[in-house]
């Protein structure tokens, strides 16, 4: 399977995402000015400060030609993962509900955070599930770094209720870990169809024991399973 990783002027974590994706499949960078997604099976909109994050994080990047292609790709059911700034871009592009606002602590914050997998049965989280037959009912936890200044997830109460009812909240900050003030501790949400997912923490920075944890790899692994399952 092949990942396409978008690259905007001001992307910072695109190479990290590329390297992470290459641990489970092929991966290639796609320049923001291109409309051709080069046959990618899944798209990663990476972290960083696209267009310097000026105005609002992600506001300008969403209009890049490559994003038009990504919107079409998503509408046709393709898997799209937005990480950090990528999550912001997907919200700005209305591929995901809600918005990301400045952290409640008003500072850029880098912290290893504990996440709870609220839905271990989706296209983006299936590899997080506990082995079948395990008695443990508590949510699976992932240790993944987060680093951002605009990470406070916000949506209207009604929208939040809907998201929860429909199982679109895939990741939550574990108790005590929600430093940015996200409503209902939401760390990652997907769209109604389940093929577009955005999260603030950085799974691509948790793919190697040498540099921290390997928990983030499971997100990429889940996407591979989904794509390859679909191909079977």
């Amino acid at each position, binding site marked *: 399977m092949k990942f396409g990783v978008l690259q905007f*002027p*001001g992307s910072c974590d695109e190479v990290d995402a590329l390297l992470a994706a290459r641990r489970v499949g092929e991966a290639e960078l796609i320049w923001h000015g291109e409309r051709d997604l080069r046959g990618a099976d899944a798209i990663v909109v990476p972290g960083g400060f696209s267009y*310097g*994050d000026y105005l609002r994080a992600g506001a300008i990047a969403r209009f890049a030609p490559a994003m038009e292609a990504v919107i079409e790709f998503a509408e046709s059911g393709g898997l799209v993962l937005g990480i950090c700034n990528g999550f912001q871009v997907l919200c700005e592009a209305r591929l995901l509900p809600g918005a990301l606002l400045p952290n409640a602590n008003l500072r*850029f*914050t880098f912290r290893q955070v504990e996440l709870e997998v609220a839905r271990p049965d989706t296209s983006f989280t299936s590899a997080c599930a506990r082995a079948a037959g395990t008695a443990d009912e508590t949510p699976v936890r992932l240790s993944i770094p987060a680093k951002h200044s605009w990470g406070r997830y916000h949506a209207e109460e009604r929208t939040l209720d809907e998201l929860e009812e429909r199982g679109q909240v895939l990741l939550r900050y574990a108790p005590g870990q929600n430093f940015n003030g996200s409503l209902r501790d939401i760390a990652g949400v997907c769209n109604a169809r389940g093929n577009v997912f955005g999260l603030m923490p950085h799974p691509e920075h948790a793919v190697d024991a040498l540099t921290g944890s390997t928990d983030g790899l499971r997100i990429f692994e889940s996407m591979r399973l989904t794509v390859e399952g679909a191909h079977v």
Partner: protein
Amino acid sequence: MSERPATADAPAGTEGEAEPPPTLADALTLGLTGAEYELICAKQGGPPNQVELAMYSLLWSEHCAYKHSKKLLRTLPTEGPHVVMGPGENAGAVDVGGGLVCAFKVESHNHPSAVEPFQGAATGVGGILRDIFAIGARPIAVLDSLRFGEPSGTRSRYLLDGAVAGIGHYGNSIGVPTVGGEVYFEAPYEQNCLVNAMALGLCPRERLVRSAAAGVGNLLVLFGASTGRDGIGGASVLASAELGDDEDKRPTVQVGDPFEEKKLLECSLELLQRGLVVALQDLGAAGLTSSAAEMASKGGVGIDIDVAKVPLREPDLEPFEVMVSESQERMLCVVTPRDLEQVLDLCEKWEVGGAAIGTVTETGRLHVYDGERLVGDMPVSALVDDCPLYDLAPAKPSEPIYPPPAATLAMDATPLQALLALLASPNIASRRPLFEQYDAIVQSRTVRRPEQADAAVLALPDSSALAVSIDCNGRRVAADPYRGTIEAALECAANLACVGAEPLGTTNNLNFGNPEKPHIAWQLTEAVRGLGEACRALEAPIVGGNVSLYNEGAAGPIYPTPVVGMVGRLPDAARAGRLGFAREGNAIALVGWDPQRGAPSLAASELAKLRGEPLPDGLPPFDVQRVIATQEAVRAAVRVGELSSAHDIAEGGLAVALAECCLANGLGARVELDALTRAPSADALGDDTPAGADRPNPSLPLPILFAEYPGRFLLSGPRAALEALAPQTSVEIVGVVTGAALEIALAGETLVATLAELAEAHRALAALFP
């Protein structure tokens, strides 16, 4: 092409509509001395015009010409087996194996940060990053070295807050991790904060590029941001005079744009990768003036520049303003006429401005045109090489320069109280509230983040790793500039040893007061002597650095602060050491403790500071070779991979180091230190409170717990692995990793502090970042 312009040639004032020509008085205002002005007139064959005087005044400033430090800098060791590029280029570089070199340098942005801490610190990071990619290396890490007055002062807190946010803003946005740094709070920095930033970069050895302009007829391309009035009369002039209270003199603040720099960085590296540039140079202090003159000087050529071709942000800049503007995020390169189109196309791809603004000539002169009009004409050698260098007149002060610090801890505090006060001291408390504002992991290379180990560790492609540390305890340098500076270098090397790295090279930033004063000249001379000796002994030559002088105001000079940054290498990234105790039941060893050394001294220690003791006149001597041998033993042991932790003993001494080892992973320790009192000179052990002071007789010998001196480490691991160090250095097994408290038994008493108590104290800085 170049007839002499009327303005430069004729006696001042003969050209009809020109503004009145500058005079000696103007030269003095710009910071030149009368004698320097005379010399400029002689070099020019007459009084310089406005453009020329502006350019001379910058290039002949302390900041650019190193008038008071160059002679000293020449005494530093700059060569060694790993050195690929020494001082003189935008950054130095060392070979790190696998065909790669590591470029690195530290630079100060002290005065701009004192004016506007956020932008000052941000543009400081921007500037040092440009120095790294100017030699062709991709920046891979930033470290910061900060000094402020005591955080009880609102202004110090404002400066701290702004500087940290500014560093984070720039580094985070451009995608370079900030992996380490240091911060100290001391009263002498109240009026003059220090903001130094160090950056590292990586590049294939053959892609290193120099800044010497070459090839007569080649073109000069200015690319990046457009030019505005930023910092006119800024850093260069500012950095050469004491910062008074005169708020009106504040120059236009330079604003940094990391997004622009990100594009500039990618554009520069792609230009190099495609072989399109002959020479590359960043624009820093003194802007175009300095870059063009340096490039011409290094290449032994002349340069013609047309300021009318420089893309401007504001329409009405005068030629001299264009030449001295310090607008950020700009680079200058030399390209062949054939490649010009490709170069400009690449600029367009990366959405950065680019314009051919000049040519390389054989004249050896710098000609500044405004369209057709020649508005400045100077010999390059006069601009760059002929500024007079001054001899210092060092004299050791007979009186103490610095008042004693304000006491915050009673003399009769118990050892437990002292330990908690030290952990909560702004100089020792956890730096987490600062470094959490920095992205330490972007680029996926960071093997050790802040507080995981004594040095930051960055993986290299071949499974080895770089390690880097930056350090300087200004209070100890103030007590003894020579030994204090050696200690700073040894401390860096100790940090590297703790992760298993051996030093490859060193950079430094000499932050001092006014060198024209004999006692500052003495501090500077002694510090450079110590730095040179230490780097020779460590075989870690100086490959670059920076000097920031005149850091003083009405309240006196800063502590002398020769910030040392050191880069090392370890063969196996996976075995990089960690600082915290990691396994219940591990033995704890004190390594490098010297029983022959006599009484450990509390002089100039953090405890002495808290107790308000005056700085001593001199630090106790130590054996540099012995310290280095201990470092080698620790390094070797860490590399074997059997140790659980390695931490060097620094500020706060042994007890604080123990607490830090416990706090890292929340593991307690039981320690017994009586062995340390059995030394031959044990009778000399005792409180070294100055005679006459109130002697409270604490039951535990405070010096054993809290004295500071180089060469000691705390290791944990299997007992056998620790004892294996014994042939190379002294090893004292002092305890075991266990429980949820730190218990230290000494002289019949036991100090007990729960981990919760220690952690609470250690969190003290959090209050500064509500």
